[in-house]
């Protein structure tokens, strides 16, 4: 739809509205090519959207099949059955898992956002010796594979007494290099004159950050927070290393239905469906800000 609007000819002021001149025989009407391109574009987008949505549909469709029909490949699940949800509810401490996962995801994303905001502010708005080198070190840390750091982190957590605790999942992940890099980009694009004006008005660096910068970064912070939350919500391996208990986080609970002795797909899909719901709700709430941030990032 936006393609058609952008490509539409602008009306000329004071010109009588007569409509387009009649097309010569064999000549294509004005705008037909644009419309065709628009339709083709929408068809492509619709197909891509279907590709994206279909796995989610299949997850919920499988979750509401009767246990004996769970491997059925018919597109519509019938008769509907919520036996898989009942089973998941009986077997897993789903309430505890949801709360634990929520606590871990909220704490991780808030901590990462805060650390990233402060670090990005320093890297983008401050001039200090070794800034480039320090930033390079931060970016370089991103390139170190998780497998290299997990055992040292594990040993460190043991020293802190945080093994088997939710805090142990959060503490080693409070710095997200991706978040630092993204926010640095946004702050660098922020008009320098506004920061200088705030300083001339007598605002401290701390005050400038919270009263000038942060209000203008809201869309970026919203989109980043949802990305960080989703990443923390979906994290499996690190919690599985730290939390050796049956009431850990939801992703590990889901994994409990997959085993060498057979995969319980109905339960996997029901538990996954439950795990997805908070993410959907979060996205719906922050949808406007997320779209704003992505559009701005794309146009810049």
């Amino acid at each position: 739809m936006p393609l058609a609007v952008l490509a539409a000819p602008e009306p000329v002021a004071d010109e009588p509205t007569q409509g387009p001149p009649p097309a010569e025989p064999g000549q294509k009407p004005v705008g037909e090519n644009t419309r065709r391109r628009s339709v083709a574009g929408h068809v492509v987008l619709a197909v891509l959207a279907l590709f994206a949505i279909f796995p989610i549909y299949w997850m919920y469709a499988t979750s509401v099949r009767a246990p004996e029909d769970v491997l059925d490949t018919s597109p519509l699940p019938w008769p509907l059955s919520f036996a898989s949800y009942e089973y998941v509810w009986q077997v897993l401490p789903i309430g505890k898992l949801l709360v634990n996962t929520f606590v871990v995801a909220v704490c991780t994303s808030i901590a990462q956002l805060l650390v990233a905001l402060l670090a990005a502010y320093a890297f983008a708005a401050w001039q200090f010796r070794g800034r480039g080198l320090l930033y390079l070190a931060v970016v370089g840390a991103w390139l170190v594979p998780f497998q290299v750091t997990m055992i040292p982190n594990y040993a460190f957590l043991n020293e802190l007494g945080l093994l088997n605790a939710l805090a142990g999942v959060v503490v080693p992940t409070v710095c997200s290099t991706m978040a630092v890099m993204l926010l640095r980009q946004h702050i660098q694009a922020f008009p320098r004159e506004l920061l200088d004006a705030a300083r001339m008005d007598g605002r401290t660096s701390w005050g400038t950050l919270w009263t000038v910068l942060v209000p203008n970064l809201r869309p970026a912070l919203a989109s980043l927070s949802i990305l960080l939350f989703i990443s923390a919500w979906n994290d499996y391996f690190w919690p599985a290393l730290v939390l050796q208990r049956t009431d850990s986080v939801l992703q590990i609970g889901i994994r409990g239905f997959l085993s060498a002795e057979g995969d319980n797909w109905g339960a996997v899909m029901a538990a996954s469906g439950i795990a997805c719901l908070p993410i959907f709700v979060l996205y719906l709430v922050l949808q406007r800000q997320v779209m704003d941030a992505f559009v701005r990032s794309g146009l810049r």
Partner: protein
Amino acid sequence: MKTLRRYGAGALLAAATLLTTACGGLGSTTAESASSGPVPELEPGQQVEITFESYNLANATWTKTINGLLERFEELHPNITVHGQPPQGGGTAGSNTAASVQSQLMVGKAPDVAQLTFGELDYAVHKLKPKAVEDVAGKEEVQAAFGGEHPIAERARDLAAMDGKVYGMPYVFSTPVLFYNADLFRKAGLDPERPPTTWAQVEEYAHAITKATGADGAYADCLTKVAVDWCMQALVRSNGGTVISGDRKTLTFAEPPAVDAIATFQRMVSSGAMPDLAQSQAMDAMGRGQLGMFLETSALQGTLQAQAEGNWDLRAAPMPSFGEREPVPTNSGSALFIFSEDKAKQRAAWELIKFMTSSEAYTAISSEIGYLPLRTGLVDDPDGLKAWAEQNPLIRPNLEQLERLEPWVSFPGDNYVQIRDLMMQAVENVVFQGKDATSTLTEARNRASELMPAS
């Protein structure tokens, strides 16, 4: 998913190995344990807390059974408190149990009792250094624990023994069983009461099923890297081969009997008797009733029963043979090992192991989880599993195979996972990608030999 699971476990193991190597190993306590003799029984009222690491606790469905048994143990031993925990990485297949224990050993928090798979036995004994149950409890007490009203199957007793010493107690395992769809048999004009007994018959029946029904014929879940090597070893041994020599110094999976066994399945794939499917695809095909025969761990029985119920007729038969040779089933599964340094905890750990391998525990484990009862007499005991066994005739082939059981052999050294992966990747390439069996397995054997420990 299974591949991801394996990569995760592999990464964990690799990192843990690296660190232990850098730190000069985990230290030896075996000699001290051996020299000190059996650990005395706990004093009445002596309070002890121990941890029990079990991959069964990572399975959502089984947690209730295992936790129920731990509660029962605490009732019987009020002075011992047991904290059950799943292994790190959340693996339910036991693929990362050694890595989990290893990383906990490094920070001085090894579980007091751990469930480790037999495929990790060599590495566990020589690198993780558990306290041998023989040293903790004494040989007589271990032999007494094997016995009782319903003794543990003779062939299962030494599965966790190495260098002549019993390190762990065999806990839960299964053998390869030929599950088959009796409905497809009938549609193909085959008699479901007479399942195939040789691989040649399996191939013949598979063609008949595919021709009559359009369903896939037969699949052996033993020939891919994901399947690990326990069942592949059964196929090789059934054809008179081995994967490693008796002195554990030479890899033998490229010798003619092994090559012939693998080539048999290559021919089945090329003739269309066996579909070119991944492990999970074959499991789903069987569950949907679109696969005629499926050589698979007997532990899958419960899942298959649930999928077949009301849809198709599930049956089970012993694993087929190569011609006139008697088939040699191997075991999957695990044993229980003690890692406590503290003597009181060692004793408490042994008490827990005795209980978890008792008739009472196997009655619950077999009836609620579906594992093979190692105390086979329970299936004839009205107070044990008699009623359950009568309701579950599928377990019979599995029990019969116990009499011919040969152990799943673990590879030696730090590189045991890489050796196994090289071998299984070569097998997969031969069977499903049509590579030349002799040259592919020989090349893998040569590369894997370089990873064997220096003798």
